[in-house]
């Protein structure tokens, strides 16, 4: 029951954060917390395949960036009233969140279907390198597109719009992000407990056995890969909204690395752990960057040491080792 206690208290804390931040006259905390939630959503999605399907994807930055670019491109075309090229019908984009965000998930999912179908022909270390290489390919593709800013990126003239809400207000945006993260968490934990999730965990533990039992293993893994990419795409769409800017640097390979670090720091295979991992890593970055401009020279060894000595992650530390998973 400690799991339920941790998750309920975590989301309660997050829910009361904006009033407290206003009371302390520090609304900047809301912006930071929103950023953490967005990265936490991406890390949670990555954990779905990393912790339950043993697929070490080093290319999730690509789906993060694609989600962001869908929002960026649609907003850009809406602003200039230009028709989006290479579509079978004439459409000048949209700024509605109900169009942009599902579309971001759809595009990320479709690209993941292609990348996953190719990458899942391999295993282990090949899979790591191939997902990295495909993400890098998309990164260079975006750099090479001058219509959408190339290396300089695109400025968004507005955040997405939902009827009845004002997303440019930082605490309203925060609550929208929080609700989405909560929904994705509930959905993921239901999926993990479902028959689908059990098959996935079975593949992680003994893939030949699942295959012999007659499960179409690759199809299950590909489905999980696509779902994971969709969650990451949604996080990307939210990140584009928060920054009101998209650029290829969202897709840089270091973003993939950071997402993996968040999953490991928080605890692989726990879903809520990666959210905590995102909070931990981003706060560590904030604090160290406040001390010195060369903060990475401190963060690097901390990462190496935590991999070498602190196994299991923050969540398992909170939940107790035996209770976890």
């Amino acid at each position, binding site marked *: 029951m400690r799991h339920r206690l941790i998750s309920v208290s975590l989301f309660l804390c997050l829910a009361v954060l904006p009033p407290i931040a206003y009371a302390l006259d520090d609304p900047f905390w809301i912006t930071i917390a929103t950023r953490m939630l967005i990265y936490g959503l991406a890390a949670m999605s990555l954990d779905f395949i*990393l912790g339950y399907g043993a697929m*070490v994807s*080093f290319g999730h930055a690509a789906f993060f960036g694609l989600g962001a670019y869908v929002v960026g491109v649609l907003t850009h075309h809406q602003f200039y009233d230009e028709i989006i090229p290479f579509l079978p019908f004439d459409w000048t984009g949209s700024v509605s969140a109900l169009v942009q965000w599902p579309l971001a998930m759809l595009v990320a999912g479709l690209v993941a279907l292609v990348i996953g179908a*190719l*990458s899942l*022909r*391999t*295993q*282990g*270390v*090949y899979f*790591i*390198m*191939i997902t*990295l*290489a*495909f993400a*890098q*390919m998309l990164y*260079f*593709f975006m*750099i*090479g*597109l*001058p*219509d959408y800013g190339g290396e300089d990126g695109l400025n968004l003239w507005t955040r997405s719009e939902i009827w009845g809400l004002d997303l440019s207000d930082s605490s309203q945006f925060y609550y929208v992000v929080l609700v989405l993260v909560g929904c994705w968490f509930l959905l993921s934990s239901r999926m993990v407990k479902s028959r689908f999730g059990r098959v996935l965990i079975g593949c992680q533990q003994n893939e030949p056995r699942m295959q012999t039992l007659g499960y179409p293993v690759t199809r299950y893994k590909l489905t999980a890969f696509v779902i994971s990419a969709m969650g990451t795409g949604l996080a990307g769409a939210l990140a584009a909204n928060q920054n009101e800017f998209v650029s290829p640097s969202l897709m840089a*390979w270091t973003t993939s*690395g950071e997402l*993996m*670090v968040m999953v*490991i720091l928080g605890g*692989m295979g726990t879903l809520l752990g990666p959210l905590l991992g995102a909070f931990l890593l981003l706060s560590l970055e904030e604090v160290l960057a406040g001390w010195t401009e*060369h*903060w*990475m*020279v401190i*963060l*690097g*060894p*901390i*990462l*190496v040491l935590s*991999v*070498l000595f602190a196994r299991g992650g923050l969540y398992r530390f909170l939940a107790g080792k035996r209770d976890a998973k």
Partner: protein
Amino acid sequence: MLFLEQLLNGVQLGMMLFLMAAGLTLIFGIMHLINLAHGSLYMVGAYVTATVSLASGSFALGLVGGCLAAAACGVLIEMLAMRHLYHRDHLDQVLATFGIILTANEATKMIFGPQALFLNPPAWLSATVNILPETPYPAYRLFVIAAGIVVALFLRHVITHTRIGMLIRAGATHREMVTALGFNISLLFTLVFALGAALAGLAGGLAGPLLAIEVGMGEQILILTFVVIIIGGIGSVKGALVAGLLVGIVDTLSRAFLPTVLKTTLPAASADALAGSVSSMAIYILMAVVLVVRPQGLYHAYGT
């Protein structure tokens, strides 16, 4: 004779990639270790080569210094971190080496400053050579190609004709057996790591006069090196050579000629834009094609 020049440029890039991939593929084949920090060793090689060359005036001395410095850093990394990761899964190895990259990049920035270094080729290589009548080609690039060939022959000799090479091959396929026969496998691992690091340092040193020496240069070539290893097959030095040349040539030729080819069918402006994007994707498309045909790479050497 633009084509011949570009072809040679491709071969030269291929040789650099081979130097990187040979070390990385040996480290993976023998120790089952994925080492992202290989690009950092390349950067160390480049910086030390440039610094020593500028200080002493001798590029050869610089190259030796670069190789030695990279090898020393490699041994240090191996003894402090990697040694504890051989039995962990690849995810832990990726994360630990990711941490090492962050540290190495920032430390380099602190020592050498944020601005890029530039190095000229040494005087005896700065001329051009007529490869065909009326076709000059920079001597330095030919020197890089020659260095790559020498290293390839050297590695072939070491791996197939020496006792160390025999142990390397045996260690890759039957690790327990080699240990059981009483060989010091841990020393062998450190040696292979140092060899791989020295090759990365050599690649970095040779890249000095061709590229800007800057923080982050290691990661650019690291990802290309991964593509080479995927195409060539993990653990195979021969695969690293063939795939390195293939990737080098495809990348260079598509960058050089794709705009011209596309202009025959598309309007000039959009052809340029499209060619820029597509040519930087060409090697990844090549990789995808190889994966579909041979998922284990061209020369699959050892069991994963």
